[in-house]
């Protein structure tokens, strides 16, 4: 009989500041050595569930508990957060914010410092933990200079050093590029097998998590557990679709092709699929061509001519960037973390000046213009909405740019209201910004830029940290803006976004443009995906395994069909 490590019994939790309980009547047992994935969209209670396990609930976030939660046999609420932290090691979502120590060594040693371990013993144990995670040669490096993967290893070493029996990962893949994400999952799996820790992963990128085996998947919705079963069984069912959670793409493809999915094996990994069963159906995948996606004939709106950029210390970041963006295009800019994508976007807004080269908008050389002059043509939406919002009320926030321009108040009112309607924020116009969810705040920032009527809009990670439902909302909204003639450039790590919503992808790597092609072509090109830390789409792998004649076309076929299916039910944007 396996030993239960975590057991919730009729457990409910009600945050002090909330009207409704966030967790309702949870019954869940996690056994020693299990590997569990928890999925659910934002506000489903999955993060709260994780906080109950590591003790942030109720010791940091106060509220009322009913029922029982036992961790390693002891009632959690009768202990304190320190006692729990000796049992549960938590790796937080934010790859930068969670580091406490300045250097790798210091950060790994942090919990030992708090346990008053002597300095020499501590240094020895830190080295051991660092060796386990292969980060020992970087002990004196500053944490913020590390790559995404190295940061993950450091964070993990910092919790592993305590030999905790339970490891909890709170959205470990957010903010990681696809290759680093894949590596993180492999790393978690290795630790799970070597150290036999009970492992809990809260993450909505299910396909990426299932890159390595998991024992069970828990599906949360509105504070309740609506699914608790092995991955294969879950994938064969329609639970994920029912709660608008993203399935692995190859599973969706199989479902669209009308395949019957067996509940007993092979579904959780594309290489384990019993492909012969599905070959026939995949060969007859429904064909719907999306109308007029490419607009090669349109006039160029933005030309980059041989751009170079260097840091102030002389280190070169970007070189020989030349490309032409046509009016009305929707383009994704992809590449690995720290490769200069954001810097490129800043060059295009005039935030930074290129060392060499020209930026031409609509035939007019803008290279040496001020930020203000750039702002008349191009708008930038930052990744973190909290970095943009400066007014208390939503209306005022959106009106800010117009007021600065000295537009008459009557006209401002009209334009802001129109923009708020486009963005679906009109009912909230008199609300304080603080009352909005993260996704709604993102919309406010988009509205605040949109109202200035830019010809080109640049968005940095428009869907980072958003669940599938909000993702679809935001992207359909951007697509609608694009249809109205705004040229959109997006920096993203999300391969599905790139495939589904953009007709062209520019891959940045090694300081320059590595590739510039359709997303389907890029994501099926082994060499480019490897160089730029992208991930080959599982659709392609599926098509190749099924021996389809034109695997690339299959990818496009699927994307078109899937959008058709999803749009059928999705809300239409109302324009006034």
């Amino acid at each position, binding site marked *: 009989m396996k030993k239960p490590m975590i057991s919730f019994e009729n457990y409910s939790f009600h945050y002090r500041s909330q009207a409704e309980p966030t967790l309702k009547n949870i019954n869940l047992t996690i056994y020693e050595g299990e590997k569990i994935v928890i999925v659910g969209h934002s506000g489903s209670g999955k993060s709260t569930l994780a906080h109950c396990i590591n003790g*942030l609930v109720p010791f*940091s976030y106060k509220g009322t508990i009913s029922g029982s939660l036992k961790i390693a046999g002891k009632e959690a609420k009768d202990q304190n957060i320190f006692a729990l932290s000796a049992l549960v090691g938590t790796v937080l979502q934010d790859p930068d914010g969670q580091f406490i120590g300045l250097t790798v060594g210091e950060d790994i040693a942090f*919990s*030992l410092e708090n346990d008053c371990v002597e300095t020499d013993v501590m240094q020895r144990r830190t080295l051991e933990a660092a060796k386990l995670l292969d980060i020992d040669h970087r002990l004196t490096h500053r944490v913020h200079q590390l790559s995404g993967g190295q940061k993950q290893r450091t964070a993990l070493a*910092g919790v592993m050093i305590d030999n905790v029996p339970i490891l909890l990962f709170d959205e470990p893949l957010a903010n990681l590029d696809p290759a680093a994400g894949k590596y993180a999952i492999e790393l978690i799996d290795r630790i799970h097998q070597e150290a036999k820790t009970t492992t809990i992963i809260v993450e909505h990128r299910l396909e990426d998590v299932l890159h390595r085996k998991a024992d069970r998947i828990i599906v949360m919705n509105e504070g309740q557990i609506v699914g608790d079963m092995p991955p294969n069984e879950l994938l064969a069912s329609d639970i994920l679709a029912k709660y608008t959670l993203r399935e692995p793409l190859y599973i969706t493809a199989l479902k669209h092709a009308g395949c019957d999915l067996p509940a007993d094996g092979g579904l959780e990994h594309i290489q384990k699929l019993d492909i012969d069963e599905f070959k026939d159906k995949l060969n007859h995948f429904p064909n719907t061509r999306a109308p007029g996606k490419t607009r090669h004939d349109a006039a160029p709106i933005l030309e980059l001519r041989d751009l170079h950029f260097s840091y102030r210390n002389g280190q070169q970041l970007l070189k020989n960037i030349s490309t032409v963006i046509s009016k009305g295009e929707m383009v994704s800019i992809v590449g690995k973390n720290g490769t200069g994508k954001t810097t490129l976007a800043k060059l295009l807004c005039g935030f930074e000046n290129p060392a060499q080269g020209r930026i031409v908008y609509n035939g007019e050389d803008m290279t040496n213009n001020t*930020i203000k002059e750039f702002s008349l043509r191009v708008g*930038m939406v930052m990744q973190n909405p909290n*970095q943009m919002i400066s007014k208390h009320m939503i209306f005022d926030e959106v009106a800010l740019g117009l007021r600065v321009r000295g537009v008459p108040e009557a006209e401002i009112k009209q334009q802001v209201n129109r923009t708020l309607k486009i963005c679906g924020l009109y009912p909230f116009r008199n609300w304080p910004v603080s009352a909005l969810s993260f996704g709604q705040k993102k919309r406010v920032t988009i509205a605040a830029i949109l109202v200035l009527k830019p010809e080109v809009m640049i968005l940095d990670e428009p869907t980072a940290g958003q669940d599938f439902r909000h993702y679809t909302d935001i992207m359909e909204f951007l697509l609608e803006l694009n249809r109205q003639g705004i040229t959109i450039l997006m920096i993203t790590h999300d391969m599905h976004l790139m495939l589904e919503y953009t007709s062209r992808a520019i891959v940045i790597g090694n300081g320059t443009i590595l590739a510039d092609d359709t997303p389907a072509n890029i994501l099926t090109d082994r060499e480019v995906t490897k160089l730029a830390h992208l991930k080959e789409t599982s659709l392609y792998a599926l098509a190749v395994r099924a021996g389809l004649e034109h695997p690339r076309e299959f990818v496009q076929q699927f994307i078109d069909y899937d959008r058709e299916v999803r749009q059928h039910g999705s809300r239409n944007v109302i324009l006034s």
Partner: protein
Amino acid sequence: MAAEMLSYLDRNSPIHRLTGATKLLCFLMWSAAAMLTYDTRILLAMFIGSLVLFKLSRIRVQEVSFVLILILLFLMINNIAIYLFSPQEGVNIYGTSHQLVHLVGRYNMTLEQLFYQFNITLKYFTVIPAALLFIVTTNPSEFAASLNRIGVSYRISFAVAIALRYIPDIQRDFQTIAQAQQARGLDMSRKETLGRRVKNTASIVVPLIFSSLDRIEVISNAMELRGFGKNNKRTWYSARPFSVGDFIAMAGVAVLLAVTLIVTFYDGNRFYNPFLAGV
């Protein structure tokens, strides 16, 4: 570069090799000496001493120039204010009055007043290089450990250290936010009136506060989850034992402090009075 001002500058120098605690103690003693004495001879000697230390540390002046200019600006304002509020302070102290320029009422400029203000300026000049040195040569990792070592509670030490560490991050945030706001047409340059500029700056400060609050929530959760605050004391990964150099430095500055005190208070007066001889 402004974005990196007042952050740790890594060099291989005798100053860098001292432990943080030594530097903190030396800095405190050095400042005490400079604050207590008005003896021009000692101040001059210390000023030259601090220049030598600065040279030893291999920090270049332009690396700290931004802060330096800021401090000098305040020093100037301070000097003007002293003259405005007590223009005869020097005469009071030194007991004589050598008038240089005849101005309205009590604002006659005297040699004594100039000498007094020269001494005050000199005090600043002896402390500034030491203070800058302490900040830019103390590895931030060691900073909290040093404070804790001289008796400050580790919670406060850590809070101070973390606050210092976030200065560059917050500066970076500030820059990003400023750019985003300028892209919406907010003008922060001199083309705008002062009132508007102040208002525009407010629209950077609000998001800056919110994004900093986010940071604080994440970091405090992270710290708590890893046992910060569990015990009444804690140990430090980057604490270093004292070496010979540390003892020499501390002894040296302690002797300096003692000599300063003796010379300063020997004749019962904190001021060195060059005017006495002339009378």
